[in-house]
């Protein structure tokens, strides 16, 4: 049954997921080297434990006007000239998230029962990510559903080092990350934007999309090894259908068929080694991840 658009109350910051993009803008979970995956492996996003807000800043547009006879004549908006930087805030220090977005590896070897992190202020090539943010929505009849917003091509930075404070009632460390946005010519599951795609946008690229569905959307990538006929989803999908109603399944950027979905297992006809399968579908299990 098609989702019926309706005016709805939006609330909360529920689930935030982040995944790395490879050179072709396919999602690759948290893989340190996203262009060198291990065949036969499922890569899933990092589910950020304590996100509290994502503040989108106003974009910059060019406007042109004419003036004559002491008064304004024409005035038109021309186009977007730049994105402003957004702000993503966590309520806790998360060294897994920090190392992922700042591009360093936590040291758990020097002292195996401790964890040492750095800041990597000298990084030259900030990593690129997809960021999925889920908020809830309610109709006037209190029918609850979820909207998952996907920032399709973002980079992060922390403006400062760590702080301490004796102020009570708030976390003393500034856990706000600046988010640098760009467009992506592929949808999160790898399909290229085009004039014939189901989601047509000017310029065949965009910075974000959103998916309204019955549960937060999980984003999973499987890199085929050319032999295995199943792969495992890290979270149970709410629906086992694979006819295009809820679960979005693509291979190398093209809509793909699977044999079945049972529990958290997807059965496929093995492709070629290195083929990139993507699975985007509702999963209530994410709410307790």
């Amino acid at each position, binding site marked *: 049954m098609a989702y019926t658009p309706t005016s709805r109350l939006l609330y909360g910051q529920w689930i935030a997921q982040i995944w790395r993009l490879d050179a072709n803008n396919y999602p690759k*979970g948290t893989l340190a080297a996203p262009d060198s995956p*291990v065949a036969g*492996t*499922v890569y899933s996003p*990092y589910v950020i434990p304590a996100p509290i807000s994502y503040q989108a800043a106003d974009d910059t547009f060019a406007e042109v006007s004419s003036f004559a006879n002491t008064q304004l004549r024409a005035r038109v908006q021309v186009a977007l000239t730049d994105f402003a930087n957004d702000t993503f805030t966590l309520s806790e220090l998360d060294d897994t998230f920090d190392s992922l977005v700042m591009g360093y590896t936590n040291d758990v*070897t020097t002292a195996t029962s401790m964890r040492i992190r750095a800041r990597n202020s000298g990084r030259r090539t900030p990593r690129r990510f997809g960021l999925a943010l889920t908020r809830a929505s309610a109709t006037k009849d209190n029918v609850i559903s979820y909207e998952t917003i996907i920032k399709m091509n973002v980079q992060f930075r922390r403006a400062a080092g760590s702080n301490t404070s004796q102020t009570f009632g708030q976390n003393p460390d500034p856990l706000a990350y600046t988010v640098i946005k760009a467009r992506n010519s592929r949808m999160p599951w790898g399909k290229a934007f085009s004039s014939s795609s189901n989601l047509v946008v000017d310029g065949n690229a965009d910075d974000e999309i959103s998916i309204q569905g019955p549960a937060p959307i999980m984003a999973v990538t499987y890199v085929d090894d050319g032999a*295995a006929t199943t792969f495992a989803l890290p979270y149970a999908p709410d629906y086992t259908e694979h006819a295009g109603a809820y679960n979005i399944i693509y291979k190398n950027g093209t809509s793909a068929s699977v044999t079945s979905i*049972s529990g*958290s*297992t997807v059965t496929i006809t093995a492709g070629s080694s290195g083929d990139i399968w993507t699975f985007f579908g509702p999963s209530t299990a994410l709410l307790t991840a």
Partner: protein
Amino acid sequence: MADDPRIGYVGADSGELTFPELTLSGQEYSQPLAIKMLSGGRFVVLDQDTPPGFDVAAELAKLDAPAPKASRKAASSES
């Protein structure tokens, strides 16, 4: 059934996953970020931060090579 705590199983009928307790290298983990399928409906969770010197490919080959039964026997004999 005593199994290697690094190996997870796919339910043969249900398709539901039983996740391993530890990652491939034996570290604890909070989320299954990378799942490597092995033969026989088994899988391992790869490490987020692989310990230096740990040979992922060699360890995977070792786990994938023997039949599941032999693997379980070896694991239980070590405990």
